[in-house]
């Protein structure tokens, strides 16, 4: 029984977390580790206050938002930082709409536009909207153990088994206790390191460990990284499905 790794909007496909972290038995298979990570992050609904910090060399751009999502298919985020105040992003399945309060009108983003980096960040719309189904597309092996930020981790190597994946190879450092991927490396077909993501802060919500602060950096561009921070995370709260509609954007 596998689940697609759902994500809140604007987090890259990299925030995987550990499962109800009791046993860290040696001899766990890669699949099992992934499953535990999955259990940490899967939710029916989620609400949080998010902050996106886009670093480019010396400059930082900060965006703040209130986000709500239902599974993987629907998400709504409203920006609260002063410059973008009132702008809303709505995702339904593979479609994205942006609502602008100044003109009270919506723009639809489709097709290959989605490959662009959002707001100049290292996260493309595609990254945010689609997830590489790790189970279906990768073969997972445990390649060793290592320490990250003082925490012992399993090192997982994921090799793509199909051609249509974002990244040919991924390496994950999964916290042995909390089953959170503290570090991930995304490699290209050639082996070149494309992106690195790190989880900087983990919060315990109920009996889950949820990553609430992560950073992704594009290895091909110097000084280019994006941080995503989630505050006031509420999981599986009642959410009305009607809020994920175009009509609702105008209100």
């Amino acid at each position, binding site marked *: 029984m596998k689940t697609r790794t759902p994500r809140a909007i604007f987090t890259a496909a990299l925030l995987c977390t550990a499962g109800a972290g009791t046993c860290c038995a040696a001899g766990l298979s890669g699949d099992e580790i992934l499953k535990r990570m999955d259990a940490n992050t899967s939710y029916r609904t989620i609400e949080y206050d998010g902050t996106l910090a886009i670093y480019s060399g010396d400059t930082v*751009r900060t965006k703040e938002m209130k986000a709500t999502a239902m599974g993987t298919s629907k998400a709504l985020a409203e920006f609260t*930082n002063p*410059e*973008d105040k009132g*702008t809303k992003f709505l995702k339904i399945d593979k479609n994205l709409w*942006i609502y*602008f309060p*100044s*003109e009270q*009108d919506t*723009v*639809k*983003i*489709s*097709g290959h*536009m989605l490959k662009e980096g959002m*707001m*100049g960040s290292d996260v493309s719309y595609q990254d945010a909207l689609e997830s590489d189904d790790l189970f279906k597309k990768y073969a997972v092996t445990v390649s060793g153990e290592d320490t990250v930020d003082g925490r012992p981790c399993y090192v997982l190597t994921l090799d793509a088994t199909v051609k249509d994946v974002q990244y040919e190879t991924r390496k994950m450092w999964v916290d042995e206790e909390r089953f959170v991927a503290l570090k991930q490396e995304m490699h290209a077909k050639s082996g070149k390191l494309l992106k690195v993501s790190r989880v900087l802060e983990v919060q315990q919500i109920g009996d889950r460990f949820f990553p609430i602060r992560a950073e992704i950096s594009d290895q091909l561009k110097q000084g280019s990284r994006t941080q995503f921070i989630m505050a006031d995370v509420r999981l599986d709260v009642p959410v009305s499905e009607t809020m994920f509609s175009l009509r609702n954007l105008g209100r």
Partner: protein
Amino acid sequence: MRNIWRNRRRSLLAMLSVALASLLCLVLQGLLGGFQESLVKNFTKNETGHIRVTTKDFADRAELLPVDAMIHHPDQIESAIRTSPAIADKVRIMTERISFGVLLENKGLNKTAVALAGDPKTEESLLYLQRSILPGGHYIDGPSQTIIGAGLAEDLKLSVGDALKVVSEASDGSLQLKKFRIVGIFRTGVTTLDGKIFQVPLGDAKTFLRTEGGSQSIIIMLDDYHEAARVAALISALLEDPTLAVTPWTEIGDYARLIQIETKIFNALDLIVMFLGAFIITNIMTMVVLERRKEIGILKSMGFARGEVLVLFLWEGVFLGIWGSLIGGGLGFLLNVILHFRGVDFSSYFTSLEFPVDNIIYWTVDAPVAAGIVILGCVISGVVSIIPSLRAARMNAVDAIKSI
């Protein structure tokens, strides 16, 4: 002297021809100058102008069309330039511009494009897009209006009267949307323009991009594009701002090279025409002298010495030449001046009237060159009169009279 008036017709003819030759040479000079000026103008008007003032930051990242590298107080810069006596006279047009990349959307279709924002009135003589507007539309005459390329209209299925949704990142990094009303669709025949560009009023762009009055660039067109580098240096010194880049057109882009080649070709043509002009004068003078061998014979038989005959003919030749050149040169110069201010619209010669270039040629007026041509005419006339005059002087009277 009397000789000249006696054979009025011939002398007049000769003088007229010299005059015409000088006139044509001079007018051609002016025309060529005007062509070159037009060439440079058309190459530079869309992007760089003769001189472009931007921040250094922008200059480094120009291809990205960044909106966060604005000149904050363009109005101050413009007034500084306008009140500087050394510079103000040389400037013909000065205007602000912002070009920025956008995402357009209509009925679910997306397209990336580039917006050109400028003062609509000024852009009528720079971007010239009003010339290419298809029937059924009109040029921008108010805020929130836009004219878009035909390719854009096709790809997004837009027509005149529709709203154009423009999404762009503003100066402060926020994402903004603005709706413009399409008042006209233009077709220039240049696919890169028609498929990618649309024009909007500068004021709208400044608000939309939250530049707080800032602009990306100030475009300056001079009276004489040759002075671009010099004037750019003057402006740089005047503004004394290390964050600004004042660049002449010769240092931006690749067209400077192409224009230099065109210039060389023009110069070659010029030389050929001048050569032809000189040749004609030579012809005329030679014929004048040769025609009058009989007179030479008569003069000699009347007792004129060889030297006197020589001087006589030489003087006549030079006299004709001087007057011819002066009149021709003078008229030519006058014509150049008139055409400089009036200009001639060559659009009717060009099949594609929609092409957004300035087809009005303003003749250039160059006093030193004019003087040079006049002097050249005189000198040639003089030189060319010498040899046949010498020969005439040496002829013996009888032979001369016998020849016809």
